[in-house]
């Protein structure tokens, strides 16, 4: 992965008193190229935030393209929930950071290596040029089946602000899980075509689930501090949910492989840059614009 030349950020005029409109676009405060100045706590909240934001962006891309009107509305509503959660989490991360970065700065003016979402969530909504509803539904199932126990654990977080966000978000995650569960069963236990595509979607996404369970120093520090669980501890609950839905959907659980994606470490797939370009272009073209 290319390193960010520290000089680029350092050379930028520090924008005197008006710090909000012109905050540096990339992560660290003129830190070394490999430096990750954020504490584990902030990084952890950013992971949660970016997961919500990036999935919200992917789901928003279905606006006006849903396979039927009701699903068009469903996906945009779920996207709205994700973006709402992302806003709360990004604001919280900005407050923890204490450098004056607000939700908009964090969403629109960070560069790709500063995003901490799981790679799973940035993958396109289909394969090649073709959007595939099975991919969207399978991903929402994989994600929300983990978000429900994750938010539940986070309602007991030592970070009171995060616990408050979790207590709201879990209500929304439950309805997302129900939506994805309903549809995956409908697709899997549907026609030969829908079954085959649902199975193919699972096969395509499954390799990216290893990242969910990969323990790293950020999670260890956060777990030790009582701020969040080790996601790997939630795996049995996730297994139970996913296996139950797959059984009902007559779908086969793909085998686990060895590949571990690395989005949460800031090393993303080739799709992430395009996603960010679309999401950030307006804010970057018109810095500080209000409407």
């Amino acid at each position: 992965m290319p390193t960010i030349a520290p000089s680029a950020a350092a050379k930028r005029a520090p924008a005197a008193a008006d710090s909000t409109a012109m905050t540096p676009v990339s992560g660290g405060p003129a830190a070394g190229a490999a430096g990750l100045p954020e504490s584990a706590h902030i990084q952890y909240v950013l992971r949660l935030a970016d997961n919500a934001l990036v999935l919200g962006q992917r789901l928003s891309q279905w606006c006006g393209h849903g396979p039927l009107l009701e699903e068009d509305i469903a996906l945009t509503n779920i996207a709205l929930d994700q973006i709402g959660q992302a806003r709360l989490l990004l604001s919280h991360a900005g407050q923890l950071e204490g450098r004056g970065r607000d939700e908009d700065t964090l969403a629109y003016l960070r560069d790709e290596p500063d995003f901490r979402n799981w790679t799973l969530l940035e993958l396109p909504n289909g394969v090649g040029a073709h959007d595939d509803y099975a991919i969207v539904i399978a991903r929402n199932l994989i994600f929300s089946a983990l978000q429900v126990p994750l938010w539940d654990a986070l309602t007991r977080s030592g970070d009171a602000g995060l616990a408050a966000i979790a207590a709201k978000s879990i209500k929304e995650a439950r309805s997302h899980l129900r939506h994805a569960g309903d549809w995956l069963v409908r697709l899997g236990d549907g026609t030969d075509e829908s079954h085959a595509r649902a199975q193919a979607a699972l096969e395509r996404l499954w390799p990216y689930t290893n990242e969910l369970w990969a323990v790293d120093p950020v999670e260890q520090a956060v777990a030790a501090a009582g701020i969040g669980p080790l996601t790997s501890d939630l795996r049995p609950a996730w297994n139970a949910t996913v296996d139950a839905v797959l059984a009902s959907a007559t779908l086969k659980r793909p085998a686990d492989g060895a590949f571990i994606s690395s989005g949460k470490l800031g090393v993303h797939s080739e799709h992430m840059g395009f996603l960010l370009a679309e999401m950030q272009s307006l804010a970057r073209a018109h810095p500080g614009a209000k409407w």
Partner: protein
Amino acid sequence: MASAPSAPPATSLLERARARVAQIPDPEIPVVTLLDLGILRDVRMEGERLVVTLTPTYTGCPATQVIAQEVRDVLAADGLRDAEVRLTLSPPWTTDWITDEGRDKLRAYGIAPPARVDPTACPIGGARAGTSARATGAPHPPVEAVLRFVPQAIACPQCGSTSVERLSEYGSTPCKALYRCLDCREPFDYFKPY
């Protein structure tokens, strides 16, 4: 101005502000007020300043900011330009906070009010109790009850029949689902329990 007689007016000012804010209609469902919805959490004086505390419904509800602005506008029109609007997340809003009067107004407006939120209605794969997220040994409720849509007893706001079907879990706003009555054939919104 800070002489003794200012105390009684301050109280009546607070009362007046509280009454004004309570009557502000929800921008999406204007038949119910902020008070009916249970999103108005507190109105108080902090020193010289009036502070109104609201709680958002859904995290991404676009109405939240409109409501906050409405509160400021209504108070400003009443001469209270310095009022502060605070948003609080905790405790999280639930549809159980919608008042009985609010429920009646919703029904009269054509929206079926939400069923009471039963905390056991949405159990998670065993991870509900205790302080640890480890859920290995916990019993898992049947898949149909947790992960799939289960029809509930919802009454048609037009004719009262409970013979209804769900058309879409997501409707015109994040908080509503779309249903149809199988007796009078009218489609209607259902305010989802949250």
